[in-house]
């Protein structure tokens, strides 16, 4: 069989990536998104800095108040909330456009016949979407720079972790959007499917609030739960790799379903195999989770000595909590003790037990008791503070608290910053730059023409048309 030499110079990615890049920038969606995001981030940032400044006033007299002031909670998480909105409601449209427009115009039929694999075409789209997302993140990153310029403290590890959380969230949303675009006949249907999927996570979180069992486990897989962990300053290898696997799975299935040459039966079979493979890999990475508390006040960790002692527990620790999931004591216990125990103890099983969701009408005397079992011994307590719980666990395990020097106490970073510069940047300068970029992008060719191509263009422009169109 003759095999013609149809390999593009430099490889297909060298042609497809610039093409996707210019095609995306030539569309209006990205620029509208940036304009909206500039205003959104500007509003979120100025509001957050203003509230943070008010809280900082009282911190001048009270050092205890100062210690509770963290720029992560006070400034960065609210500011990046604008990026969350953009990732959820606006960025999917850019992702959908990369596939849907080629399906609708019929360009896909031509693309499928190019001398490169469909995976190369999809890889080029993903690469460009990542680059575009980094542009979309610029307003948020500029807010971090503005905060730093105004004398604010930036904990780079916690900010980087927050940024990573939003990136991973976007990766999964992009996967959902690409799959929707591959399945749907039109962009509008794809957009509805994508929004339905992200809203379904909200509904799941709402339904699972205060619930245990399957619903709670399902909500742990939701996108909002994924992001919440990063917002709290916890880097979890399971969450990060899980999001990457989910994103890769969704994009792979999108690639399978967009290929017109594959039969329905084969699409179903290949997609099923991809799901099985992804679940297997995800289960594998969950076996040895890695947690890093990136916050400067180490709010998600026990003291270093306690963390080291708990990590040495080699038998399963069982915790039976006789509290209703919506009981404030349970919520407090979960935040201050249980979540930290889960990250510190290698083998731990926590079982909530209650008759009602709120606990308001619980009559049992044992309500409020927490039962701890370790190595055949058990103890109980009604305390929800680590000061009582940890010695009790050490007692059950028969171990001494290890002597490890602890971290320096968190000083807190109160600041009353001005927002004048931020308002000029977000409401005037940045929008002007975006509009200028928008205008410039409309003038760019789809590919980088070589000097010879430009010569062709100028030469043939001067020729007389031989017929009308």
């Amino acid at each position, binding site marked *: *069989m003759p095999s013609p030499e149809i390999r593009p110079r430099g490889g297909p990615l060298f042609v497809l990536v610039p093409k996707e890049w210019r095609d995306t920038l*030539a569309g209006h969606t990205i620029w509208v998104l940036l304009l909206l995001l500039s205003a959104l981030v500007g509003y979120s940032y100025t509001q957050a800095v203003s509230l943070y400044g008010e809280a900082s006033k009282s911190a001048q007299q009270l050092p205890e108040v100062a210690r509770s002031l963290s720029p992560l909670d006070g400034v960065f998480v609210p500011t990046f909330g604008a990026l969350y909105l953009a990732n959820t409601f606006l960025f999917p449209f850019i992702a959908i456009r990369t596939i849907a427009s080629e399906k609708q115009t019929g360009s896909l039929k*031509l693309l499928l016949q190019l001398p*490169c694999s469909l995976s190369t075409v999809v890889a080029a789209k993903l690469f460009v979407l990542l680059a575009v997302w980094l542009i979309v993140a610029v307003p948020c990153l500029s807010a971090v720079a503005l905060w730093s310029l105004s004398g604010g403290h930036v904990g780079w590890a916690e900010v980087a972790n927050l940024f990573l959380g939003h990136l991973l969230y976007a990766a999964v949303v992009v996967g959902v959007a690409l799959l929707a675009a591959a399945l749907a006949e039109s962009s509008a249907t794809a957009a509805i499917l994508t929004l339905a999927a992200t809203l379904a996570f909200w509904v799941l979180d709402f339904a699972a609030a205060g619930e245990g069992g399957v619903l709670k486990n399902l909500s742990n897989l939701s996108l909002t739960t994924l992001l919440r962990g990063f917002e709290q300053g916890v880097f979890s290898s399971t969450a990060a790799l899980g999001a990457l696997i989910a994103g890769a799975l969704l994009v792979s299935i999108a690639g399978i379903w967009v290929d017109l040459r594959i039969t329905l039966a084969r699409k179903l079979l290949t997609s099923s195999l991809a799901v099985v493979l992804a679940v297997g890999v995800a289960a594998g990475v969950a076996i040895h989770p890695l947690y890093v508390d990136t916050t400067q006040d180490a709010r998600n960790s026990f003291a270093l000595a306690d963390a080291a002692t708990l990590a040495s527990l080699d038998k399963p620790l069982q915790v039976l909590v006789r509290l209703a999931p919506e009981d404030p004591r349970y919520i407090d216990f979960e935040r201050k003790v249980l979540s930290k125990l889960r990250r510190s103890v290698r083998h731990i099983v926590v079982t909530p037990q209650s008759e009602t969701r709120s606990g308001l009408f619980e009559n049992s005397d044992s309500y409020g008791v927490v039962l701890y079992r370790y190595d055949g011994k058990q103890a109980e307590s009604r305390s929800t503070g680590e000061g009582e719980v940890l010695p009790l666990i050490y007692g059950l395990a028969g171990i001494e608290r290890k002597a490890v020097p602890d971290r320096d106490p968190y000083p807190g970073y109160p600041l009353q910053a001005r927002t004048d510069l931020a308002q000029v940047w977000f409401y005037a300068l940045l929008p002007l730059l975006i509009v200028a970029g928008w205008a410039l992008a409309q003038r760019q060719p789809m590919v980088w023409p070589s000097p010879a191509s430009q010569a062709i263009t100028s030469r*043939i422009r001067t020729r007389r048309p*031989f017929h009308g169109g």
Partner: protein
Amino acid sequence: MLKVQNISRRFGPMFALADITFTARRGEILGLIGPNGAGKTTLLEILSGMLSADGGSVLWEGSLLPALRRKQVMFYLPEAVTPYPDRRAIDVLALFAQLFGQPDDRLAAAIEDLALSPILPTRVGALSKGYRRRLLLALGLLAPQPLIMIDEPFDGLDLKQTREVTGVLRRLCGADRTLLLSIHQLSDAERLCDRFVLVSGGSVRGEGNLEDLRARTGGGHVSLEEVFLALT
């Protein structure tokens, strides 16, 4: 070179194609002739691998050619396609020239052959139907595969343009290039094609050059139109 054997395709209870069998020889222009709805586009989509067949096989040089490998030897230009409507015609042409690894002089030749110079700076979406068709034909000129399949190459062209494009297609075809054209205008097909596959109601009613087909209808110097009517 290309052998199509017993291709069948159903849409629900209706047979769109039933046991389609024909061959395409190296260097010829083969016309797939039939009225609208005869199944020509469905057949081309199946041959290009864009649509799966319920049965049958496609052979290239005697070897079975799976759907995913067809793009190595054939390039299909669908009828209703507007590639990258927001981009300029020159950008789209340059993109495909680069992807096909074609040198700049080949791109210039394709542009000149199809007289696309006046519309190079125009957005593809703003082109007239005729220019859009010629832009697609230019992509066909840039494609290096030995078999080019074009669905309705003359659709949207006036008489003079049709004659010009006929000349371009004739030059495109040669010892190393075969054209398979789906045409519903019998006069255009008769002027351009070396051989014909007559399709009606999803099945092949005749295959051969005009003399062969005339012989099947009883001889006489009749037009392709009359032959088609006699055989279908």
